[in-house]
């Protein structure tokens, strides 16, 4: 059986020292091993940006696509081979700005993949511009007078879009984050895990210390019930979204692949391409 070390490759990440993404990488590797995967059965599909490089830093099949499109690529991979474990990953710009349309629709489509967002509230690779997760008033190179736009609340948004698995974590909480990714992989449907992953170079506001001070663990809230969507929404609103842990899970709704008509129970990628002559003749006959 593979250990987390088997999910390491010999590529050195080009992230800055202290970047939160290192821990996300480690958590993903541990979670993959913990759920019993072999490297060839995992496909990590990532977007563009610092965090998008993650698919190249894990010893598994990896596809580093185009900006904002990790989710449609990942859904295509999963539709082609339902036996693969598919993790899509990228930054908050990738998932909540250029790729927001895909995020909402992947949530409501509920194909069985896991989406890990590394949320640092800034554009890092382009050297410090505002992100849709930057708070109003946040000063960056693109908002020198402070952002006047409202930040997106991805967890609330996911709940309203019909999400079946919504979780949030903080990159330094390696154990909790690993457990959430494991739960996301095991969840039968689309799982969204937003991870606060601080940018030590460009975000001087949302720092490690800032998160430590402002985050509330859901496990510390007595009697919190992640199967209660209404409670999840209220808790998020009460804490301005700054909570960590499993926020909501619906285990009753079936995944897209279980619901659609006729879809192969074995991986489509293994299907016989040859068409039966009799069936083809029937198709031809329909046009006569």
């Amino acid at each position: 059986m593979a250990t987390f070390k088997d999910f390491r490759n010999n590529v050195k990440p080009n992230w800055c020292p202290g970047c939160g993404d290192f821990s996300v990488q480690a958590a993903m590797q541990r979670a993959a091993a913990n759920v019993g995967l072999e490297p060839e059965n995992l496909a990590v599909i990532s977007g563009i940006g610092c965090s998008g490089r993650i698919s190249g830093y894990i010893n598994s099949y990896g596809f580093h696509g185009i900006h904002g499109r990790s989710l449609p690529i990942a859904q295509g991979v999963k539709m082609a081979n339902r036996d693969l474990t598919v993790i899509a990953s990228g930054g908050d710009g990738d998932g909540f700005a250029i790729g927001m349309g895909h995020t909402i629709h992947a949530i409501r489509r509920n194909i069985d993949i896991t989406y890990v967002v590394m949320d640092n509230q800034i554009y890092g690779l382009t050297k410090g511009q505002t992100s849709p997760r930057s708070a109003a008033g946040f000063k960056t190179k693109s908002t020198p007078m402070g952002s006047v736009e409202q930040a997106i609340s991805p967890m609330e948004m996911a709940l309203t879009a019909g999400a079946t698995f919504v979780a949030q974590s903080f990159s330094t909480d390696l154990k909790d984050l690993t457990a959430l990714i494991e739960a996301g992989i095991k969840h039968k449907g689309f799982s969204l895990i937003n991870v606060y992953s601080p940018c030590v170079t460009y975000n001087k506001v949302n720092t490690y210390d800032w998160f430590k001070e402002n985050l509330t663990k859901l496990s510390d809230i007595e009697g919190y019930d992640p199967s209660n969507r209404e409670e999840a929404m209220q808790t998020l609103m009460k804490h301005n979204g700054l909570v960590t842990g499993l926020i909501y899970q619906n285990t009753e709704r079936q995944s897209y692949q279980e619901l659609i008509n006729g879809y192969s129970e074995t991986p489509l990628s293994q299907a016989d391409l040859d068409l039966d002559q009799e069936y083809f003749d029937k198709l031809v006959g329909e046009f006569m």
Partner: protein
Amino acid sequence: MINQLSWKVGGQQGEGIESTGEIFAIALNRLGYYLYGYRHFSSRIKGGHTNNKIRVSTTEVRSISDDLDVLVAFDQETIDLNYKELHAKGVILADGKFTPKKPEDTQAALYAVPFTEIATELGTSLMKNMVAIGATSAVLNLDIHVFEEVVQEIFGKKGAQVVAKNMDAIQAGYDYMKKQLVDGVEIMELEKADGKKRMFMIGNDAIALGAVAAGCRFMAAYPITPASEIMEYLIKKLPALGGSVIQTEDEIAACTMAIGANYAGVRTITASAGPGLSLKMEAIGLSGITETPLVIVDTQRGGPSTGLPTKQEQSDLMAMIYGTHGEIPKIVMAPSTVEEAFYDTAEAFNLAEEYQCPVIILSDLQLSLGKQTVEPLRMDKVEIRRGKLVTDEIPENENKGYFKRYEVTADGVSPRVIPGMKNGIHHVTGVEHDETGKPSESAANRIAQMDKRFRKIENIRFNTPVYKNVKHEDADVLFVGFNSTRGVIEEAMVRLENEGLKVNHAQIRLIHPFPTDEVLPLVRSAKKVVVVENNATGQLANIMKMNVGHAEKIIKHLKYDGNPFLPHEVYTKCKELF
């Protein structure tokens, strides 16, 4: 007796014009006639003039006819917009309901037939279309029993009574019209057809069926005119084969999802029209640099932007060849008949896997939506070739060395492994990369990988890159076209040859890489080269100049008003040159 007939039915969109044409055409197709139907429609659901022009012949037809024998009109607008196509002995069958007026400058005969009134008497005005079919049958001296089977198929679900009532409506229309056709009125009776069974389908049906035959089991697409029929067909057929279609949130998702599924080993298609292709371009570049097979259909329509969304145009040519930023190997094919649309689509999946690059199947509105008689398509002519797809076990490599997915090879094609295979792990990225897929900015690696990618399509093997009808070693004219202009060129050619002109014809089926070796000798041996295309700038003519030279001989014959060419327009253009 006539061997060819042109019939048109017109009215307001949403009035059942389409189904009237459909019933008439299917019945005649089953008698063994060759048909060609073209719909004029607008981008709205109800209202606005629409018509369906159907040509019936005892021999193959691939274009709209110049003139018209019978016009069935459900409103005055239909008469006013279309009467000029009628020849002197033509007939207008108009609904008496709107007291039709015959334009002064036509010799065609007008008959006011109470379509609506007769239908209402029989139960419902909805059956006015059936009355019109009956009236048409009288003019053609056609036995109305030929419609029984089709009417049964369409209305059978609604019960025997509905079927019977519709047949009664056809009979009533026939009887009424028969009485009007007093001595002296010419009956347009068609020669008997051969009775052979043939298919009657649109180009989009053939594309979709070609995909099924080729083993395509997944589609990701977004609805758009005139491409949606491809998605709609596959939605009906793929589940029975274990496959699926996802209607995505947008065109970018459609294209990237198709890339994901192809990467993971499933033959996947996406289809759209110009606006969708514009949105897919970045992803097509991703397919190019990651060497992921991808089959994309572009059913061209009037552009740019929303342009003329329901009208014919062939203006995406340059965009399809050069549309992505950066440079990638790409194959652009352009079937010119419905048959070719089937076989070329099937072949596109082979090429995409053999050359590991995007393959664009270019169609146009006339080919995609024009409905025509097709000889039964054959499965035994469809091959499945998957190129260098690795299916054997891969030996373990040392020290987690990644599999060389982008190995530099003599033919440029590298072995392709799909996710799930042991010891096949490699990285895939749109960033320039080395042989194992890891990002690399090295200058030497850049050159090696760029050269490798382009080497793939240097000697592309393509069955028939040019459809040729070449009878003369020294032609007066060489006609060149692509996609649906084939039919009009063929008809113009027959007329010109009858008048003593030496005419050759080349319809380009492989647009890119351009088949210069095939086209150059034809250009050399012709006095003049007339390039017929539905766009304003002469894109194919320009591509010809770029690849085969001889700019002095190349004459652009362009039409960009939204309508397909008519045979006489091609004929006349050529006559002007000599």
